[in-house]
C-alpha cells in the first residue's frame, strides 16, 4: 500500500527560558526523534499517556508548531519516491525542498492545509463561541476561496448531513449543542475542503460513552465514503482497537512499539505496552486478572532518564537499559519495538 505521510527523525523541543535575560536554560523534549509512516486510507492509532508528546506530534505535522528538526513528506508521487533512494545528496536536497512539508511557507503551506485537517479533543473550545454553525463550517471553504454564495450554502448543508445534522442546526451557536453534536460540527468543518488526511486528536475523550460510540461509527463511515486517511490520537487502547489498522505506542516523546492492531492486541512486546494493557479497566467483573501496576510516574520530558526512557519504571530493566538507548527495530513482520529485551543483535 502507498505511503501518504512519512515523518522522519521529527523533533520538537520547547526552550525553557530563565533568568533575568530570559536565556535558554534547558529544553523540554516533547517529541524526540519520531519516525512514522501512515499508509493511504488507513487509520493509524497513536496511543500514549498525557505528556508523551502525541498532541505535539500532531501539531508539528500540521505545522501549527515550529519544527525543531526532521522532515515530513506528504503524498510524494511514487516515481519520485523510487528515485529518491538512488539520488546523490545534492539532488536529494533539492527534491527534499520540493516535497518536505517542514520547509513550506505561505501559499504552499496554505495549499497543504487544504489537504490536511484536524479535529481537536474538546469541541466546546475548538468552536468559536461567537460564530454561527454555518459560518464555522463554511470558514475553510471561504478561506481557500473554493465556493461562494448559493453553492457554499448547499455545500455546508451537505457537510452537515454527512455528520448527521440538519439544516435546522445552521443558525445556532455552539453553546446550544451537546458535546457530541459539537464534535460533529468540528468533523464537518474538517471535511469541508475535501482533505485526504485528517488528524483526530482524542476526538472522543471529552464525550460520554454512548456518544463516543456514535462518533467512532461516524468516523469509520466517513473514512470509507471519502477515502480518508486518519491519524487517530488517543490514550484509550480499546478505542484504538475499534478504529485503527495499525497502532503506535508513544512514551516520553518516542515511539516504543509499532504494529498492526491485531498483532499488538495478540502479542504486545514492549513492557510499557503490556503495562498499558493491564491497567485498562475491563468492563467485566468476572475477569480477575493479575495486573502489572507500574511504579512511579512519567518522568519530566525536560530531563528524561538516560538510556531507555522507560527503565526507571520498567520491571525488566537491565544494566544496558540505563546506558544505551534502544532503537526501533523490526522484530517480526512489521512489528517494531524499541527495547533491548528483543534486540537480537545484542
Amino acid at each position, binding site marked *: 500500500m502507498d505511503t501518504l505521510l512519512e515523518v522522519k527523525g521529527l523533533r520538537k523541543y520547547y526552550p525553557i527560558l530563565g533568568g533575568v535575560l530570559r536565556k535558554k536554560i534547558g529544553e523540554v523534549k516533547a517529541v524526540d526523534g519520531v519516525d512514522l509512516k501512515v499508509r493511504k486510507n488507513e487509520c493509524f492509532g497513536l496511543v500514549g499517556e498525557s505528556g508523551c508528546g502525541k498532541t505535539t506530534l500532531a501539531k508539528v505535522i500540521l505545522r501549527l508548531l515550529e519544527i525543531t528538526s526532521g522532515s515530513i513528506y506528504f503524498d510524494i508521487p511514487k516515481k519520485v519516491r523510487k528515485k529518491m533512494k538512488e539520488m546523490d545528496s545534492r539532488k536529494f536536497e533539492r527534491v527534499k525542498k520540493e516535497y518536505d512539508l517542514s520547509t513550506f511557507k505561505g501559499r504552499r503551506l496554505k495549499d497543504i492545509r487544504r489537504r490536511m485537517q484536524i479535529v481537536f479533543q474538546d469541541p466546546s473550545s475548538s468552536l468559536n463561541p461567537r460564530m454561527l454553525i454555518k459560518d464555522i463550517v463554511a470558514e475553510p471553504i471561504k478561506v481557500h476561496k473554493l465556493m461562494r454564495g448559493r453553492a457554499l450554502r448547499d455545500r455546508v448543508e451537505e457537510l452537515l448531513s454527512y455528520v448527521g445534522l440538519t439544516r435546522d442546526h445552521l443558525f445556532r451557536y455552539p453553546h446550544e449543542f451537546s458535546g457530541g453534536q459539537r464534535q460533529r460540527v468540528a468533523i464537518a468543518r474538517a471535511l469541508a475542503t475535501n482533505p485526504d488526511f485528517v488528524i483526530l486528536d482524542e476526538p472522543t475523550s471529552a464525550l460520554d*460513552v454512548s456518544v463516543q460510540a456514535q462518533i467512532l*461509527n461516524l468516523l469509520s463511515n466517513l473514512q470509507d465514503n471519502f477515502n480518508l486517511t486518519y491519524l487517530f490520537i488517543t490514550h484509550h*487502547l480499546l478505542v484504538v482497537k475499534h478504529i485503527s489498522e495499525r497502532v503506535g505506542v508513544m512514551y516520553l516523546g518516542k515511539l516504543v512499539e509499532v504494529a498492526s492492531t491485531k498483532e499488538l492486541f495478540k502479542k504486545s512486546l514492549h513492557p510499557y505496552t503490556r503495562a498499558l494493557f493491564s*491497567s485498562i*479497566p475491563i*468492563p467485566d467483573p468476572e475477569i480477575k486478572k493479575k*495486573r502489572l501496576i507500574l511504579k512511579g510516574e512519567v518522568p519530566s520530558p525536560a530531563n528524561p532518564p538516560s538510556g531507555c526512557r522507560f527503565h526507571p519504571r520498567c520491571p525488566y530493566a537491565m544494566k544496558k537499559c540505563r546506558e544505551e538507548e534502544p532503537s526501533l527495530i523490526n522484530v517480526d513482520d512489521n512489528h517494531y519495538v524499541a527495547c533491548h529485551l528483543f534486540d537480537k543483535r545484542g
Partner: protein
Amino acid sequence: MRELLKVQNLKTNFYTYEGIVRALDGIDLDVKEGKTLGIVGETGCGKSVTALSILRLILPPGKIESGKVLFWYKGELSVDLLSKDEVFLRRVRGNEISMIFQEASSALNPVYSVGEQISESFLLHQKRELYKAIIEEIEKNMREDNFFLKNFVYRFHKRIYKKMLENSKSLRIRFISLLPLINRYKVWLKKEVSRRVVDILTKLGVPDPQRIMERYPHELSGGMQQRIVIAIALACNPRLLIADEPTSNLDVTIQAQILDLIRRLKENLGLSILFITHDLGVVAELCDYVAVMYAGNICELAEVRKIFKNPSHPYTKALMNSVPTLEEKKLESIRGNVPNLISPPEGCRFHPRCDYATEICARVKPDMVEVEDNHWVSCHNFLRG
C-alpha cells in the same frame, strides 16, 4: 448487612434562566456498610448532583426539593441529613462522610503546603483526640525525664492541654497562646499533627512522606495530588467516602495505581464508598453494587456481577454495548441525545431513545421492581435473561 446511608425519593431542581432543570427526579439508593456502591451514568445524568445533595452542598440556583438522606449515626439509621442544621452537617462533612473530587489540582489550595492542608482536617474534627494523645505523650515524657525544671514545664503544658480539652475556646487559653515563650506548648500539637499526617501518607503509599508534606500542590503530579486529596478525605477515619470521578482525569497507568489504592483502603479500613464514574470498566473492577443513572433517575441497581451478566434495563444494556471492549464487536450507539432536563420526556425518561418502548412508557413513570435477589430495575418491559 447494615445500611450506612439510605437515600429516599431525593429530588433536586435547578432554577435557571431557561427554566427549572429537574436534575434529580426521585432517587432511592442505599450504601451498605463496608461495601462500594458505584453510580454510573453519562454527563448530566445527575450523579454528581446526587453526591452533592447527600452532603447538602447544592448551591443556588439549585435546591433540594424533597426526600430523605438517612445516615447511620450513634447506633441507628436515624439521622436525616436534609433536616439537620448547618452546624451538625459541618460536623458530619469530612468527619463521618468525606468527599473527593475529580479535579485534584483545583480541590487543593495552592497557597498552603500539602502537610498544612491535611492537618487542617485533624484540627477541625479531631481536636479532642489530639489533646488526649498529647497529654499521654507529655505524661510519658514526664516519667522518662525527671529533671526538676523540665518537669515543671511539662506539668504546665499538661495543665493547659487539660484546660483546652474542657474548653478550647476559653479566653485564658487564647491570651496565653499569644504570649511568646509561654506559647511554646503549641509545639506538642504541631508534632502530634505532623506525626499523624506522616502516618496517613505512609498508609497511602506515598514515598518519602516527610518531604512530600513540605511541598505545595503545584509541585506534585496529578496522581500524587489525587493521593493527597484522598489523604485529606481519610484523615478523620470517615465511615463513608464519596468519590466523584476521582480517576477520570488521570492516565490509565496512574488510574490503575489509584484504584488499587482505593481497593486496599476499603479492605483495610472497612470503608464504605459511594463511587461515581462514567467508566463501566472502573465499576466492574472496584464496586460491589452498581446503580445506573439516566436523566435524573436510577434505572437499574444491582450487584455488580448480576448487572454485567444480566443487564435488565434497556439503557444499561445499550450502555454496555457502546463501550469498546477487548472482544471483536461492532460498537452500538444509542440513538438520539440525552434529553433536556428542563422539559424531560413524560413517563419513562428513556422512552424516546429506547428500542423496547411501548405505549405505556410514554405515559407512566415505571417503579423500581426487584427482578431477582438484589437486582432492581425501573422499566415496564425489563429484559429477562
